[in-house]
């Protein structure tokens, strides 16, 4: 064979491979918009059949009965490997199996970071499981209607959602594209930040945590619980601040609660160089630098707590369930934090920042099963009671329930109805987070803010420098996120 011919053959071969690879890498999941005119998708066909067959019959939730899978199906689910969460999902799967014997859920635990990294790419590659648990912060910069199965109107009409689920905020995320529903919230009411307490250490220090009604009282208790060595270094933190997912988000929520507006919806720009942000950031810095109730150098609050090196730390109520499962010998308690600033509101986080989403690849019996699962999750109060036992959210927070029962907080409707809290505190936060911004709050708080507060705690930068850096990083990301 001539040398030149060989070379031509090689080049031709390489070009073919490049062209084929280019086309393969350019493949996306087929969306409904790419469906040819005149064709109907399997979901639409099933939906039409469902409506035709079951119009006249309603289920126990007052919704048209959904068809059961004709054969037994098993649906794979990625679930974050948080121990209490896995137990909750396992119990929910068992409940669904009991009520719908043909439906099985195979739970595949995934570490948080792994789940975060592959949540969207798996969907793009078409390798996602049938059901996924995910956080809405992972979805705010994408159009969920292109990624996940549309649940309305089969599961429930979008207009009827609020009759059953009292937290409307998550619809802003998993229904953002066209108002339809593309997921089911993990919790269906407000979350609340709280303080996980080591009951033994608190008792040893003669502190009655139920009497802590102001932030000053909380700080006093924290100082009493903090231990120092001879050189004045913290050896046991009285109030841990280094569970970043919580402390960073509390920082953000606090700014909003005292009237700060870091995101301008008109200009689409972030600005943390505002008095409210400075007040809150300085407050957070002083707890380490002046009050010395924690020292980030002694390790993470969540790791230190079971070892008795952290007496209290700020975290969501889910941690109670997690600690009870992972460290059953530990005596823990949980209190809601008092208002941070005089005249301020109690610290409430936005509702249910996590949820279940479903694959668009589902067909036939699996699709029927998923519709049933989604309805059970949203409308069946027994699902909530499972979460209640494992402290999965504020509505399961027993302290909150006691406050609700004692009338200290007046809520109308069922005990899952936290409309008042949502209206007064949570909806404004949600609007400020989901309206216009392409950057999700999780990114601002965990990736941008938290390293900056670490530098403040380390003494390498001032509050003003930190806020400038946070503003710049937020705006760079906002402008850098693709349409």
């Amino acid at each position, binding site marked *: *064979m*001539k*040398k*030149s011919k*060989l070379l031509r053959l*090689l080049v031709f*071969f*390489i070009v073919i*491979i*490049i062209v084929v*690879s*280019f086309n393969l*890498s350019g493949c996306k999941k087929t969306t409904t918009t790419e469906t040819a005119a005149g064709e109907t998708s399997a979901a639409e066909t099933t939906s039409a059949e469902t409506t035709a067959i079951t119009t006249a019959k309603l289920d126990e939730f007052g919704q048209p009965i959904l068809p059961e899978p004709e054969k037994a199906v098993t649906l794979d689910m990625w679930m974050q490997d948080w121990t209490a969460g896995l137990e909750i999902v396992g119990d929910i799967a068992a409940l669904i199996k009991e009520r719908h014997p043909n439906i099985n859920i195979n739970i595949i635990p995934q570490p*948080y*970071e792994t789940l*975060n*990294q*592959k949540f*969207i*790419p798996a969907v*793009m590659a078409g390798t996602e499981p049938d059901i996924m648990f995910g956080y809405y912060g992972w979805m705010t*910069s*994408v*159009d969920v209607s*292109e*990624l996940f199965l549309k649940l309305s109107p089969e599961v429930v009409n979008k207009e009827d959602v609020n009759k059953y689920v009292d937290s409307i905020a998550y619809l802003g995320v998993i229904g953002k594209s066209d108002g339809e529903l593309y997921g089911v919230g993990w919790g269906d009411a407000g979350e609340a930040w709280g303080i996980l307490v080591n009951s033994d250490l608190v008792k040893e220090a003669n502190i009655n945590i139920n009497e802590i009604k102001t932030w000053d009282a909380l700080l006093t208790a924290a100082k009493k619980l903090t231990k120092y060595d001879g050189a004045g270094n913290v*050896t046991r933190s009285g109030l841990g601040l280094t569970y*970043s*997912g919580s402390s960073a988000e509390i920082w953000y929520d606090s700014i909003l609660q005292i009237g700060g507006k870091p995101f301008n919806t008109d200009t689409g720009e972030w600005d943390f160089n505002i008095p409210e942000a400075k007040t809150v950031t300085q407050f957070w810095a002083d707890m380490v630098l002046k009050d010395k109730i924690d020292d*980030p*150098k*002694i*390790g*993470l609050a969540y*790791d230190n707590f079971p*070892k008795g*090196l952290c007496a209290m730390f700020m975290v969501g109520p889910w941690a109670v369930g997690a600690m009870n499962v992972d460290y059953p010998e530990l005596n823990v308690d949980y209190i809601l934090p008092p208002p941070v600033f005089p005249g301020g509101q109690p610290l409430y986080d936005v509702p249910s920042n996590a949820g279940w989403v479903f694959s668009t690849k589902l067909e036939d019996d699996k699709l029927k099963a998923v519709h049933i699962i989604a309805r059970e999750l949203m409308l069946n109060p027994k699902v909530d009671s499972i979460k209640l036992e494992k402290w999965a959210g504020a509505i399961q927070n027993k302290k909150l329930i006691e406050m609700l029962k004692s009338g200290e907080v007046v809520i109308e409707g069922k005990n899952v109805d936290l409309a008042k809290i949502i209206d007064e505190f949570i909806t404004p936060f949600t609007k400020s987070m989901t309206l216009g911004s392409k950057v999700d709050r999780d*990114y601002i708080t965990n*990736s941008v803010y*938290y*390293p*900056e507060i*670490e*530098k403040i705690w*380390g003494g*390498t930068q001032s509050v003003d420098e930190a806020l400038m*850096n946070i503003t*710049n*990083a937020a705006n*760079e*990301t906002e402008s*850098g*996120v*693709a*349409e």
Partner: protein
Amino acid sequence: MIKKGRVKINRFILAVFIPVMGFFTIFGFWPIIYNFYLTFIRTKIVTKGNFAGFNNYIEVFSNPVFRISLRNTILYCIGLVVIGIVTSLIIAVSISKTKGLLKKIFIACYFAPVVTSLVATSIIWKILYYPNSGVINVILNFLHLPMQSFLFDYRIALISILIMDIWKDTGLRTMILLAAIEEIPDTVYEASLIDGANPLQQFFKITVPLLKPQLLFLAVIYTINGVQTFTQVYIMTSPHAGGPGNSTMVLALDMYKKAFGNLRFGYGAVVSVVMLLLLIGFTITQVRSRTEWEW
């Protein structure tokens, strides 16, 4: 008589070569091309991206976190190569002076960390470094030395990870250098003794020069490793990977967080291009410098 321009090709070799070339093209060559393409695109992969010109490059180079990660990566590489090779050389020379069972024991001890997984090693060292309760701090406390925060102290977090990294592969570097040392003829040392050379002069004038090929090889390999540092930093600084305060942020981690954490694939592609250029630059510099080492 062979006609001009006609080359005899072994068809078997061709049949074997084409699939290998195909594999390399798909999984090696094509990703590089596509990556360069991504550097000019703003995309979340979910939707078709927009052409962004050089905006991704401007954004990356003006990002303070990127600059920190670039600085950390360069310092990490220098530390890994220089300290790693020097310590391994000293250990290799020391082991070469031993014999018999003791030598085998030393070799086994030093080589054991090499065969353990980097993930497992990182997790163990993270526990060792733990403030107050980690073994290292317990020993420091026992010796009445001040305890350190290691991975939670922004000043020494990166150095702490570097120490683990150097420790882990010391055995491999030592074995390579030991094998080379043992290849040096004894006659060379004997001749130097006759000329009045002391051990230190023997080391610097004989041993080191004759180990240059191996030293260059190790420098290149560990520069590549250093630029690609990710696993140990990610595991040892989790859940705040790259912390405290971005003090352990390195290029690979910055790329990973931006691309897969925030779906900023254009940004991530630019960082990977920077890593590639860094690797090429370091490697070329080191290979060219070998001519200056030759006697």
